[in-house]
């Protein structure tokens, strides 16, 4: 997920930075006072989740929780991810500095899309399914966007996309399961958080 410096073409980098700035501006505008602590906690979650890596074939994958964050925070995903990504790049060298825009876009945009699509459906499906769908589809979308950014910079799309897709498939299942647990738990301890996300139990 974290693309390193020196891989992507300049137009891709510029587009990534511009779109991330727009997304962050929208997110900050929607960041109400009562959401600030929650956003901070989820940002910390995302920051730490990337430290867990699972060796897989020639590569390795890690959790990102972007589906969960999208479902809970919507557009706030942009500032939340951006802060965590900046710190990851500075402290651990995960991804480059110049590609921060693209990396943030690749992770936060699927979060926003998944959140926007699933939030209206929250009354029609059990919390387990909601969490699973959010977690797994956001990871797959992120994989697609990573392949797309590599493709736009000259990689052969089909090979890269295939590698990224198969690499991310187990991760998307894992992330779906974990997100599902978290949603069910949150739904139990603090149902008002989703403004009425209910399980049909």
């Amino acid at each position, binding site marked *: 997920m974290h*693309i390193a410096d020196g891989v992507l073409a300049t137009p891709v980098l510029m587009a990534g930075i511009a779109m991330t700035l727009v997304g962050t501006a929208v997110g900050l505008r929607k960041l109400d006072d009562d959401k600030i602590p929650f*956003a901070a906690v989820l940002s910390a979650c995302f920051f*730490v989740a990337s*430290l867990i890596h699972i060796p897989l074939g020639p590569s390795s994958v890690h959790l990102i929780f972007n589906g969960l964050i999208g479902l809970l925070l919507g557009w706030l995903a942009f500032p939340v991810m951006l802060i965590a990504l900046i710190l990851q790049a500075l*402290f*651990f060298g995960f991804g480059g500095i110049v590609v921060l825009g693209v990396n943030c876009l690749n992770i936060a945009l699927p979060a926003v899309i998944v959140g926007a699509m699933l939030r209206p459906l929250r009354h029609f499906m059990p919390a387990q399914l909601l969490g699973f769908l959010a977690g797994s589809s956001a990871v797959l979308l992120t994989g697609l966007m990573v392949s797309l950014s590599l493709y736009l910079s000259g990689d052969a799309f089909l090979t890269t996309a295939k590698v990224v897709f198969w690499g991310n498939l187990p991760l998307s299942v894992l992330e779906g399961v974990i997100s599902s647990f978290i949603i069910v738990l949150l739904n139990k301890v603090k149902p008002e958080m989703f403004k009425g996300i209910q399980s049909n139990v």
Partner: protein
Amino acid sequence: MSKFVCLAMLIFLCLMNTAQAHRIKVFAWVDGTNIVGEVYFAGGGKAKGAKIDLLVDKRVVANTNTDDVGEFSFKQMEAGDYQVKANAGQGHVATFAIASSEFPTKSISRSDSIELKLPELEVVQSNHNVDRCQILYEAAMSKAIQPLRNQLDQYEANIRWHDVLGGLGYICGLFGLWSLMRTRRE
């Protein structure tokens, strides 16, 4: 309440796995006239089948792939400044520089396998023997410090607890600052 749940989850995640990262590193060194090295994910795991390019002044002069244990080698290279660039796919790229000073200053015929014979050291008389001795000494030295350099490189890439805690502190601080700014504005 949910904050505690999230915090508990966070701590649980921390405990699960402390020193794993998602970043590749390439490390290479000169062995006689060969350039050998390895590609690995910081904190553990070898990168198998990663593409390796050997560059001189941003020009690719040779390329290969890593084997099943993440290692690679370029045989019979001339002394010079090289850049090793590893690509493990999905935008995971790392580079490593090899300086010409790392190559043995004087080449000897069978530099692949260097055996240090102690008796020879004691009977160096002629210039030829002094030269030879120096080469063997340099080679033995570089071989001896190789594991140490490798370890240092891996150590540098490890994730340390204070970095993680520092990052969490930054996140709290930044959001706190944001909330402070908002209250000031009102």
